[in-house]
């Protein structure tokens, strides 16, 4: 039982939760909007159980489609953690968002352990299809519908690109294994698949959907998407990068990474909508992650741990950031004016998250950025290091601008002040995020500790 459990603990728990929610939904027949507390708890419980199993399943196992090892478990744990946050905080008017989130989680879990191109494709679809619906359905408005359609059209095009790449790789090697035979076709195929991965990560020429979608979604959902889905895209990118024919990432990924970092931050400078601003900031962060990935191809030693540390830090601070938006009820930049006096604790939390995103010590964000810098310099990639430094500076410009607005601007008229959300779960998770961001930064060996868990696959070379 041990081995299969290690393989499917994650998706299984997600599916179990999904079924449970569906069944619980059957007990009453009225479709009126309601806040299904029990369903939420059930979904969270299943996700948490999955997390528990993931953390306690030490065996490595593999089948034709999947393989389970420290690497996949870590990613799945990350996905479960992010989804727990989403499930706990997402505003509900029915149980459908729970189902969709759980389905997407199943896709994410499959993605983390997939060892087969076809599995990758299906999990990619399973991961993204519910999200189109979530974006559309959570906040039924014209904007959300528009975002859903845009996301769907571009996302489906990305899937098609992936699929065509898959077909090419199949035609080249005759199998769906990631490590098949190489030929001219597979060069094309990997390029197409990488394009799809870049789309999911939100790297620069593939990022246009991202601000629109984040702007139209609920902050919790945007926070989840920016962490879990971005992580999934990055994971996919990493897989492809190390399975692909020897095209140096420096050739194509590093310019794109640098461009994402700079353009993301530059575009964020002039945003008025806060979610959109954070969306652009997440593009810049994706660029930093991609930069770390570039370094990985040159300096394989510490990089997986670095990327994973960055992602886990990012999970806390970006989810925390979006949570801060929810907690303060701020939609656009003006709403933040004078917030420091109106809601000191909430604005302190938001400020902490922003400073952490800006990478100021001693927060978690600083540590994450430091690792990437170290990684890049170890790989000798001065160009990317300089770009990262420059983009951090530009980023500081708007993060700090927001902090300044919160504390140093006169508050808006009372009538225009947005209402403040006060839900227990939000506050609890906010406290968690704040603690993680503050204390994590004082724990510089985070990366090596994570590295020791990740070490197994890296040593085996399965990732590479």
């Amino acid at each position, binding site marked *: 039982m041990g081995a299969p459990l290690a393989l499917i603990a994650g998706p299984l728990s997600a599916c179990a939760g999904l079924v449970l929610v569906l069944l619980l939904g059957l007990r009453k027949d009225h479709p009126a909007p309601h806040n299904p507390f029990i369903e939420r708890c059930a979904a969270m419980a299943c996700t948490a159980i999955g997390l528990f199993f993931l953390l306690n399943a030490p065996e490595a196992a593999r089948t034709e489609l999947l393989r389970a090892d420290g690497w996949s478990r870590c990613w799945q744990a990350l996905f479960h953690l992010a989804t727990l946050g989403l499930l706990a905080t997402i505003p509900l008017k029915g149980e459908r968002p729970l189902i969709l989130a759980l389905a997407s989680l199943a896709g994410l879990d499959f993605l983390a352990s997939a060892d087969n191109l076809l599995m990758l494709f*299906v999990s990619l679809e399973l991961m993204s299809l519910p999200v189109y619906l979530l974006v559309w359905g959570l906040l039924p408005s014209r904007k959300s519908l528009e975002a859903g359609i845009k996301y769907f059209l571009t996302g489906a095009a990305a899937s098609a690109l992936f699929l065509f790449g898959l077909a090419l790789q199949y035609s080249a090697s005759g199998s769906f294994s990631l490590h098949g035979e190489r030929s001219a076709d597979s060069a094309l195929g990997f390029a197409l698949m990488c394009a799809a991965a870049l789309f999911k990560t939100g790297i620069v020429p593939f990022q246009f959907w991202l601000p629109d979608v984040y702007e139209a979604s609920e902050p919790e959902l945007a926070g989840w998407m920016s962490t879990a889905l971005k992580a999934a895209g990055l994971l996919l990118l990493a897989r492809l990068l190390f399975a692909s024919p020897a095209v140096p990432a420096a050739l194509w990924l590093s310019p794109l990474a640098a461009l994402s970092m700079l353009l993301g931050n530059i575009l964020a400078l002039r945003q008025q909508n806060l979610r959109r601003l954070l969306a652009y900031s997440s593009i810049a962060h994706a660029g930093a992650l991609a930069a770390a990935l570039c370094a990985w191809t040159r300096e394989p030693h510490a990089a997986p741990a670095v990327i994973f540390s960055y992602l886990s830090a990012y999970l806390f601070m970006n989810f925390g950031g979006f949570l801060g938006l929810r907690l303060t009820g701020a939609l656009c930049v003006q709403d933040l004016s004078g917030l420091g006096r109106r809601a000191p604790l909430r604005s302190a939390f938001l400020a902490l998250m922003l400073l952490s995103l800006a990478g100021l010590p001693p927060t978690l964000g600083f540590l994450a950025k430091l690792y990437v810098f170290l990684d890049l310099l170890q790989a000798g990639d001065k160009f990317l290091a300089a770009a990262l430094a420059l983009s951090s500076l530009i980023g500081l410009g708007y993060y700090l601008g927001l902090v300044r607005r919160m504390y140093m601007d006169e508050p808006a008229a009372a009538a225009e002040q947005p209402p403040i959300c006060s839900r227990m779960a939000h506050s609890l998770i906010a406290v968690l995020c704040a603690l993680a961001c503050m204390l994590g930064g004082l724990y510089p060996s985070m990366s090596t500790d994570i590295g020791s868990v990740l070490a197994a696959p890296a040593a085996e070379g399965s990732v590479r």
Partner: protein
Amino acid sequence: MVTLAVAVCAVAALASAGLAFFSKNLYSSAFCLLAVLLQVALLFCLLGSTLLGLLQLLVYAGGIMVLIVAAVTAVGPESGNAKALGPSRAHAWALLALCAVPTAFFLIAARHCAPSLPPAAMLEKSMARLLFNEYALLTEAVGLLVLVASLSVLKEQHD
């Protein structure tokens, strides 16, 4: 003989795809798509997998086309205003021109392909076995996918 048939099908498929692109009427676009799908199904049969051809016919012609045609009917075939949109024509042509290089590369790569084997017997049977053994999880996942998709339709009804 088969080659000729494949050639005819291929040309027909390409032509109807082109027609679909250039026709301004959504109905005709949809019907041209139907033609493409039929040609593809035919190609599947011609290449040796009747089962897949049939499935293609069923799912696409029977399922997806119905959806699309129904949607077109609901939306109306004519486009509204005809403002210029997105990338200009010149940009689109430039993009297309850029596509020429990879396409050429793709076509040249045909030389490196493995020589085709004679069609193996029982291929479709082993496919079915695969789906329920090695690929069981995959099938499950696709099932989940379809469930999600159906939820979207349900959502339509709810709201």
